[in-house]
């Protein structure tokens, strides 16, 4: 197949494309170099270290089988060679719309090993969002599963390959390399291919839901590796761990499980949505010890645990980010999985992770999402940009080597969120989230800017109203829509109670200005593909009536 030739690229196009940030990248590099002189600073470097340390240890499994670190490495190299043969060069984007299968991990490491950039896209994304993403990332080729490859070819205007078909070529090459007949990958050229530098672009991660236009966070190797290491310093993944990846690999929370698992030399256990009715059994069967959760997954797991009378799976650690688990869900997890710790976390794709609470730290500090990652700083800012003291609510801002390079080809949005100090060159990421710190630097998240509003002159947040609704016995889930455009404050609740009963319960818990005008009972809250409440969908429901 011939491909449409991408425009000639010079070395490190990432920097050219995010020009305003060149200054920061230099600084980031010098910081991380002094900290981690001998440690790998690129994502393929993480895999190389794991392969060197434990080649025969299991690296990844899915429903079809399992690869050791040496096998994963051979397939990553074979995939990199496959890219080379298709004319892919350093800095080119490779769009992969692939489910939670082993091949994804080889595509990830192989693409990066070749010096190219991976754009993971959720297979659940509908055409309405996929079409702008497919052109925005400007890929040189795309990979999809089944008939989806044809859709990707149509939307990108570039060659698109079917994963199962292309994988036969990759697998054959990997097996030849394993027999010592051929090197799997032999493309090294400082300008064209291979051996990415820490500042080279690694990933474009499209963030879900917050704006109408697609927006990708530009992630070079160095901040991604720094973030992985910093998260691990708090959570402590172990070589013997089996790490569940039930979240989509296109979602950074899912994707980084691969990096964390490889850093620890552990095994990633990939599952797909249609397997989740067996999720509890799968945890036991595969001996899963670490389970990253969003609320919908946690609730499902608890329902399944409730109908099972076998031995509890050997889970030792639940982590949570994306959307916070409620108190009753955390308590339910502790009851159903004796011995498992729970680690609430908070982050944003723009710097991957902001805070991690030590496992079980919620027992002492309920509601906290933890302290800043080691080597990074969390600030709470007033509207004028000055730092606020502990206890005061303001915008959460972040500094450190984990702050990414900005938004892909969106200099204005980048400048708005990634603000560079003109004197020092230091970048402060403005998250758009609100919260406060306690005296020991533990962060308490209060909501998105959009979730904070005034009604009848009273300042309030969607989060506090939702928390009060969840406190009403019989309410299983709740989401609040702020007053907007003639529509008053509305509560959506999953409950067996009548709407009036829910509002009465809220009236007992909140001042009257904070009690929604309307409560709508729904079967389930609509979710984005990443498991967060889909507020735009809720807004449409309200507008439709």
């Amino acid at each position, binding site marked *: 197949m011939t491909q449409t030739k991408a425009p000639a690229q010079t070395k490190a196009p990432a920097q050219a494309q995010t020009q305003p940030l060149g200054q920061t990248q230099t600084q980031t590099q010098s910081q991380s170099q002094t900290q981690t002189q001998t440690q790998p600073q690129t994502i393929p470097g993480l895999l190389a270290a794991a392969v060197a340390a434990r080649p025969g240890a299991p690296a990844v499994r899915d429903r079809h089988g399992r690869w050791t670190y040496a096998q994963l490495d051979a397939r990553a190299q074979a995939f990199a060679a496959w890219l080379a043969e298709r004319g892919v060069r350093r800095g080119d984007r490779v769009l992969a719309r692939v489910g939670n299968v082993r091949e994804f991990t080889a595509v990830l490491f192989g693409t990066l090993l070749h010096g190219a950039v991976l754009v993971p896209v959720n297979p659940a994304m509908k055409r309405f969002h996929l079409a702008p993403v497919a052109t925005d990332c400007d890929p040189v080729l795309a990979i999809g599963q089944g008939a989806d490859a044809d859709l990707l070819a149509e939307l990108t205007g570039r060659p698109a390959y079917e994963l199962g078909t292309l994988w036969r070529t990759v697998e054959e090459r990997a097996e030849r390399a394993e027999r010592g007949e051929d090197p799997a990958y032999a493309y090294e050229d400082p300008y064209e291919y291979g051996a990415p530098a820490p500042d080279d672009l690694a990933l474009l991660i499209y963030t879900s839901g917050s704006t109408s236009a697609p927006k990708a966070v530009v992630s070079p190797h160095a901040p991604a590796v720094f973030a992985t290491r910093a998260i691990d310093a708090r959570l402590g993944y172990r070589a013997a761990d089996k790490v569940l990846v039930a979240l989509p690999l296109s979602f950074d929370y899912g994707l980084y499980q691969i990096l964390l698992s490889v850093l620890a030399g552990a095994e990633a256990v990939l599952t797909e*949505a*249609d397997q*989740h*009715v067996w999720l509890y059994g799968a945890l036991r069967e595969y001996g899963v010890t670490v389970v990253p959760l969003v609320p919908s997954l946690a609730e*499902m797991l608890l*329902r399944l645990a409730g109908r099972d009378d076998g031995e509890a799976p050997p889970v030792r650690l639940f982590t949570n980010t994306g959307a916070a688990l409620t108190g009753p869900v955390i308590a339910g997890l502790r009851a159903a999985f004796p011995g498992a710790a729970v680690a609430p976390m908070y982050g944003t794709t723009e710097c991957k992770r902001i805070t991690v609470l030590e496992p079980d730290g919620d027992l002492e500090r309920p509601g906290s999402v933890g302290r800043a990652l080691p080597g990074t700083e969390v600030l709470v800012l007033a509207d004028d940009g000055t730092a606020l003291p502990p206890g005061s609510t303001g915008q959460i801002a972040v500094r450190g080597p984990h702050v990414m390079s900005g938004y892909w080809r969106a200099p204005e949005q980048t400048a708005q969120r990634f603000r560079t100090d003109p004197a020092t060159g230091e970048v402060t990421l403005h998250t758009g989230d609100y919260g406060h710190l306690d005296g020991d630097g533990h962060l308490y998240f209060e909501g998105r800017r959009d979730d904070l509003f005034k009604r009848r002159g009273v300042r309030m947040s969607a989060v506090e109203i939702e928390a009060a609704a969840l406190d009403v016995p019989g309410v299983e889930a709740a989401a609040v829509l702020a007053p907007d455009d003639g529509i008053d404050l509305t509560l959506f609740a999953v409950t067996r109670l009548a709407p009036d009963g829910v509002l009465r319960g809220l009236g007992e818990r909140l001042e009257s200005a904070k009690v929604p005008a309307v409560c709508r009972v729904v*079967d389930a809250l609509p979710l984005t593909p990443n498991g967060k409440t889909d507020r735009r969908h809720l807004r449409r429901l309200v507008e439709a009536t």
Partner: protein
Amino acid sequence: MTHVPCPWDEQFARLVIAALPAAARHDAAPLTVDHDLSQAGLESMATVELLIRLETAYGVRFPEHLLTGGTFATPGDLWEALQSLREDAKDTEGPTDARR
């Protein structure tokens, strides 16, 4: 659409349709044996709820090997799995308590 007569009872049809998103319920009724449930929007959490409701209603327990996407692919597949469990239950000690 299929011409196979629907083998199930009314309770089964009601539970399956209730598990679908509101927008898909109208198209799913009356339920046919080969209706693609995943296409109709049966998501993982709803599948789990449906599993638990069926187990409670029919006094059976789905063993692990039946907890697959295939079991929940169509109403026909699901009814077949449910029937096999009810027969097993009859063969042994009569209707068993599905819950502890």
